[in-house]
């Protein structure tokens, strides 16, 4: 038998002028309007703190904040970013570490670290919006982030420490 697939003609037309704010700075680039945000961040802008893993919105490794809300950048297209404020892990600690990052460091909240930027972005989005989040709320905030190394032990210690009801 023959495996002949009619090739899909790919025309990468970078004809969409995209403007958005990334980590507080304005970005203007020409891209294909359907280019994924994760590729714009990682490949075009070389900010590799945002990771790529399942590419279908299940693992959360590519999590960024879009207008303050957590969002999978693998499921976000260029045209959806027009005029938005986007923050990545690189935007979270310009000067000094955020308390979320400090907690991950001290509680053993990561091992290989590949899921960690996404985890931190998810918690940051939640805590920005609800600074007094409870343990259960923080846990729910991580329901879209997978970790394979820690078994969530260290991550539980992190959210226990960050939660408003930590006693």
């Amino acid at each position, binding site marked *: 038998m023959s495996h002949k697939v009619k090739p899909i003609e790919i025309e990468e037309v970078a004809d969409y002028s995209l403007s958005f704010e990334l980590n507080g700075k304005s970005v203007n680039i020409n891209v294909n309007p359907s280019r994924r945000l994760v590729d714009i961040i990682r490949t075009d802008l070389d900010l590799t703190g945002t990771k*790529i893993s399942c*590419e279908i919105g299940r693992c959360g490794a590519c999590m960024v904040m879009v207008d303050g809300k957590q969002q999978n950048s693998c499921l976000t297209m260029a045209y959806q970013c027009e005029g938005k404020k986007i923050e990545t892990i690189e935007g979270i600690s310009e000067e000094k570490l955020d308390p979320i990052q400090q907690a991950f460091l001290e509680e053993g909240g990561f091992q*290989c670290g590949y899921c960690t930027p996404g985890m931190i972005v998810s918690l940051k989005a939640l805590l920005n919006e609800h600074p007094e989040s409870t343990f259960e709320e923080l846990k729910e905030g991580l329901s879209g982030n997978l970790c*394979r190394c820690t*078994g969530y032990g260290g991550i539980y210690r992190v959210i226990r420490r960050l939660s408003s009801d930590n006693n």
Partner: protein
Amino acid sequence: MWLDRNSSGDKWKVRPDGAEKVTGKLRYLTDMKFPDLLYGRVLRSTVPYARILSIDMSAALRSPGVIAVLTYRNIPGLNGFGISTPDQPVFCEHVVRFEGDAVAAVAATSEEAAEHALQLIQVDYEELPILDTPEASLQEGAPLLHKDGNILHQTDYSRGDLEVGFGQCAYVVEETYLTPRQMHTYLETEGGIFVPEDGKLTVYAPTQHGYKDRMQLSRILDMDEERIRVISSPIGGSFGGKDELNVQPYGALLALHCQKPVKMHYSRWESVVAGLKRHPMKVTMKTGMNIEGELIAHQVTILSDTGAYSTLGGPVLNFATEHAVGPYRIAHVDVKGKAVYTNNGVSGEFRGFGGNQVIFALEGQLDRLAEKMNIDPWELRKKNLRKATDLGPMGQRIVPTNGPEQVWEAIKQSPLWEKREASSDSTKPWIKCGIGVSLAMHGSGLGYGIPDHAGGTIRLNKEGKIEVAFGHEEFGQGLLGTLEILMLDHFGCSKEDIHIIIGDTDLVPPSGSSTASRTTNMVWQALNRLKGPFLEALFSKTSQLTGYPKEALRTGLGGIWAESPHKEKPLKQVITYMQLANGTNDFECTTEFHYPVTPDPIMGGHYLYTSTSVIAEVEVNVLTGMVVVKRIDHTVAAGPVINPMGYLGQIEGGSVMALGFTLTEDAVMSSGKYVTKNLDTYLIPTIFDVPEAHYVKAIDELPEGDPFGPRGVGEVGSVALAPAIVSAIKQATGVWVTELPLKPEMLLQQLPVLEEEIAKTPS
């Protein structure tokens, strides 16, 4: 000691690689870029078994942006890889043997152009009837997948006489256990960058043994090993899965062919289809004991689906064979194993290494025998547990260990222990609770008969730092933290005074693999060996330069310190490390040694072991068949705890991997094709599937005079949870589960009807 931040004191340390990881600054190897970069992709067969009739690459070669399309014709050296036996073709020539087999590879100027080119390569196949179970492969007349047949490896260990043994038994249990095709699911999929330069090739790609990759690549590329540099850290998770070559042959061939840097990074789907999995095993055990509850006879057969190619399928089977006997005294034993080729995805090395499957079965046997005799299953284990100086599971001499006895006793300190006997009534009658306990003894190191080298180098570098170099990799386990802790302990200096080099074959000595729970033990031994000669060299020179007697000198913060003859006076710094280094790399010492190995020639037999016990509490919803794990406590007997955060993390992480193995994880194949293609259907635990109540007790006492130090903990967390959960489910529901992962619908079918009971509940 229940391990946590408080009990660990100042040994609970922020990891040296931590700040870069939490800020996203760390460049993983798949995050790297080079100018003029090409993108590499592999064309995979998509059919599980077929003859290749023709490959037409002409359209792909004409496609814009395509620089090269390579097939088997473009391999200068050996068209094969495999750590143990190189029977996996880099590119298939006549036949494809599984869905993920590689047929061609493309390099193009963009990812999109490479993707497009793959679709333009025309491969004509004549599909062949597939062998999708080991049973089918073993049938008479089955097509032979490899020239030596369909059996990769067989094991046969026996002692005593089974017939005599079973003749003395009052209770016999026979059961067959099935385990899943578990996927490692490292979050960073396989990838890397390959850079040719001045007749050399630099490989930036994750692996668990850089020198081994170098050797394998040298064979494929027909290129001297010295001309290949493998940089293998940092890594976004591995768990055994990146031990074997994956992207490396393709990236290397493309880069050398194009003479440009090539980047490869598998999509998740490609990682699923091409990557290794845990061997699915069918383990049948017939186990008998006498009227007193003494185990007498134990017969085991193991059928392992190794998939299309071997990688470490043989050693995994050896490991399973050894661990099928466990830490129990049994006079009459017979274990026969077969690792069989099929047209399924390739099975290979994975945390636990064949122990997970047989320990699930063996502990299940103990629980069932206890039920038959109507005694406490924990007491039954005690009755049969090995003693410290007993021989190992296959009759080999092992380093004395009372680990099994220690963990047997220590688990009673878990609060679940008291709860175990009390029947806990839920207010919801459709929720049934149960608690199960199990134990295991797990070998470290590669075992008898396999080269298992170790080594390291220490020097004072020209920046005035105490520098160590090891050929090990950091894939998250905490090696860098462990090395830092060990070095600060040895030299009393600050972390600013040290420098650690790992994972770069141009800069490190051969140190063997970062596998088999061996690394902590190996670096501990290496530093112990290096410390004396290194200090001697430092102090001789210092003495020469300063006039202080060598005996008065110590290493410390920033440099060498001296004791004054009046002991009560504080130490005084006599020279800084910087001054001592004087702008050169000096005072270098290197050590080479072998992992400790049993003197008895029993292939694969281990010498050093770690023991663990696990107690787990579950809730079973008898209306849905769903199981929730409420709490897990581990005890681990592995000698001194060097890096408590790393130790705890290994047990927690290994344990939750085992939770997935037990309840949800299965890379399902149907007719030789993966059905679970991504993380929407392959379900690793989320935070909602894992209890917060999860504790680890570290038992650090070793038998007196033990010279071997800290045992490995990288795998042992993953090997004993499954039988504990299954035992808890039994206590909760009366149903014995024999197939993992547990399928709620199968559990429901076996549950007694509870409608009446539920109807009685006040709403």
